[in-house]
């Protein structure tokens, strides 16, 4: 039995320690907002937060995250900054198929949580790990810039 803290709730899970966090979240806890895209940390669809930092849950053995605070896309909507990000995603009509967007939003939110100064280069660094096959990149950039401006951290 492993003890996991996901979205503020403690769970006891009976899984092998090497099972990636992604599959515990999706198949055991039934939180399917976090997506499977590649399984080798190449696409970022599985991005969640571990103690506020973005991590690729598809390559993270669950035993290595015991005791850490895990946040998934389902756990962010109470946070004002996250709501701003989600609002910006809608205002800029970012999503197309939408499959990668949970991961995109988790990476963007981590950037906005972490940085006091954001510019295009910072967006490149923070978001280059998240693939979008619909290629919504132009709008992702605009949405992040929009939130950065609204919270006063956009510094081109």
């Amino acid at each position, binding site marked *: 039995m492993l003890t996991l803290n996901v979205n503020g709730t403690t769970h006891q899970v009976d899984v092998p320690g090497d099972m990636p966090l992604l599959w515990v979240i999706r198949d055991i806890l039934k939180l399917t907002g976090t997506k499977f*895209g590649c399984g080798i940390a190449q696409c970022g*669809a599985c991005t969640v937060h571990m103690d506020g930092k973005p991590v690729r849950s598809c390559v993270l053995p669950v035993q290595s995250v015991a005791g850490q605070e895990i946040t998934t896309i389902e756990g962010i909507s109470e946070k004002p900054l996250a709501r701003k990000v989600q609002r910006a995603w*809608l205002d800029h009509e970012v*999503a197309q198929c*939408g499959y*990668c967007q949970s991961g995109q939003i988790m990476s963007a939110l981590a950037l906005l949580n972490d940085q006091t100064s954001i510019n295009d280069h910072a967006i490149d660094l923070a978001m280059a790990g*998240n693939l979008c096959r619909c290629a919504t990149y132009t709008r992702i950039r605009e949405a992040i810039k929009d939130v950065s401006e609204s919270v006063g951290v956009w510094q081109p």
Partner: protein
Amino acid sequence: MKDQQVKLEMASRRRFLKGISAALGGLVVGAWLPPMAPKSAAAEAVAQGKASLGDSLADGFGAFVRVGHDGRVALISPKAEMGQGIQTGIAMMVAEELEVGLDQIDIQEAPPNAELYTDALLQFQATGGSTSTRYTWEPLRRAGATARMLLVRAAASVWETDSNLCHARDGKVFGPTGQKISYGELVDLAATYALPDDVILKRPEDFHLIGTPATRLDTPTKVNGQAKFTIDLDMPGMLITSARACPVYGGKVRQVDDKAARRVPGVRDIVILEDVVAVTATNTWACFQGLKALNIEWDYGANSKIDSAVVDQKLQDAIQRDGVIATEKGAIDASLQAASSKFEAVYEQPFLSRSPLEPMSCVVHVRDDGCDLWVGTQVPGFAQQTAAAVTGLKPEQVKVHNQWIGGAFGRRLDFDFITQAVRIASKVSYPVKLTWSREEDMTHDLYRPQYADRMTAAVNGEGFPVGWQHRIAGGSIFARYVGSLPASGVDPDAVEVAVDPIYKLDSLKVHFIREEPEVVPVSWWRGVGVLRSTFAIECFVDELAHNAGKDPLSYRKTLLAHKPRVLTALDLLASKVAWDSPVPRGRGRGLAVGEVFGSIVVTMVELSAIGEKGVRIERLVTVVDCGLVTNPTSVKAQMEGGTLFGLSAALFNEIDIKGGQVQQENFHAYRQLRISEAPPVEVHIVPSAEAPGGVGEAGTALIGPALLNAVNATFGDRVRRLPLVRSGYFIA
């Protein structure tokens, strides 16, 4: 139960063949659709009342539109949502004519029903080919207008007044003396009326919703993790399954040692089929671990001797042959004899994978008395047929519950993974969710064919082509998808655009030389024949302009004097990018133009050279005239995304074969454009009242040639083979 690859029923195949020929051979190619798209079975059903308005008091109205007692409008979407925003577009069409707000509409997925949901342009029930807006434009507005007329008539009857004195707005009918009544209260009465045969659609100048940037209906749940795709579904008693097919296409399972796999915690069953081994388990990780633990001995078969070099050589040989003549106008042979000069070039394009981000997935429950499929599919009818064929059930015993699709790009026009899921589910007693690993997905895709195009022009004294000969060699998607080529021997998709190029030519001869790669199955991509032809033609014309020492834009305009809409688009592009101003040193611009999927697109790429082979994309501009626009936000998004999708492939992508096996297994080897490499795409929409054109694949079609033309302008190097990285270039 049958355990071999399913063959579609012959009757439907004939129908399909006939339909595709019509759609791709005559209707779409180079011919503008009339303002009202031709009537489909569905449009006729709506018009004749066979299955539409008034068919069911319980459901309210119709095949496409049902108004409930609560006034909510159910829109039964004949088109699958895979990110293109089509369900919002269709909802706008219905809401416009029915006079309801978009927020009153609930979208449902259409079940398989060829009579009701056949796309008149494709002639089968499918989402693809950039036809969705073009097809739905007439029947869906008509369905909304018909419902509105009946509701107004019902209100007039209640008030004992003339319906001409009543009007509808915001889900209510208003009478001449200030009366009002909501749609929900009128449903039962309205549903007793015969359908009107005098349905009048709104004039575009009266639109208040169509043409406005409406917010997508499906996006709110796509930003909070609540949206469900096939891969996210869960059913009572369901187990996960994952499969490994023979790494070589056409190979078989010889024997399997599954002792280690059975010891993996969570693994339930091992299902061994002729060419596939599957594991079922309580979770996806256990499935993947179980598959890894299997010791499978394969019989790879004949394809294991084939490498990419073999495919290359076969195509090089093929373009020396004449194949089948797809079209011949004027006397090209005489033109070539008499021409003051000739020019010839060969353009090559690689195998490509679709690789949508949601790996192939399908939930199936096979029972003795029926089968349920929960799957995102572009072809619900084929999904139903394949499940029926595998299980021996009747098609009507197979229920298809279509889902939102996590990217398709043609992948879910194929139903190989559905067939596989049903084959596995037929061997177990519980529902299963098939989830492929990325490696399985990429190595068992069906691939956009590798092609070679050989173009030979007769050039006059001013440097303009009098005519050209265009040889197209590659595998036939049409033949693979439908079962055989049309009697002409020409793949109508492969030669699209090539047989009707936009440029004025006195003579033209197009050859289709079928050269099947055999080693991998070929299939649709985000645009296929249109892209292939456009790539070759736009690179070739650019070369001709260069050879003539002329500006590539004004050169094209000279050859396009008969195409006023294209000229308008070219002029708009020229003004947006200040084409007549010189570019800074070290930079170059390339452009490409086309009439594609019913739309006109001009794309310009500006590059700068970083050292000898470093490419920096400075600017990417595209102009689109797609006729009357339903949702400008969606048009812009599709042009942005489609252009970058094409750019990603043109820069980086190529599927290689070694020993019959696809070498690219995941995104580290099949690189995709990332945000740090993606330039902003400037999209300009030409205002137009013409019939709607398609935009899903339009941007993708122009970026490849525009990029290579820009490379030539920047580096003085004429690259004729995709992807660009193959020639030593890199993104700087």
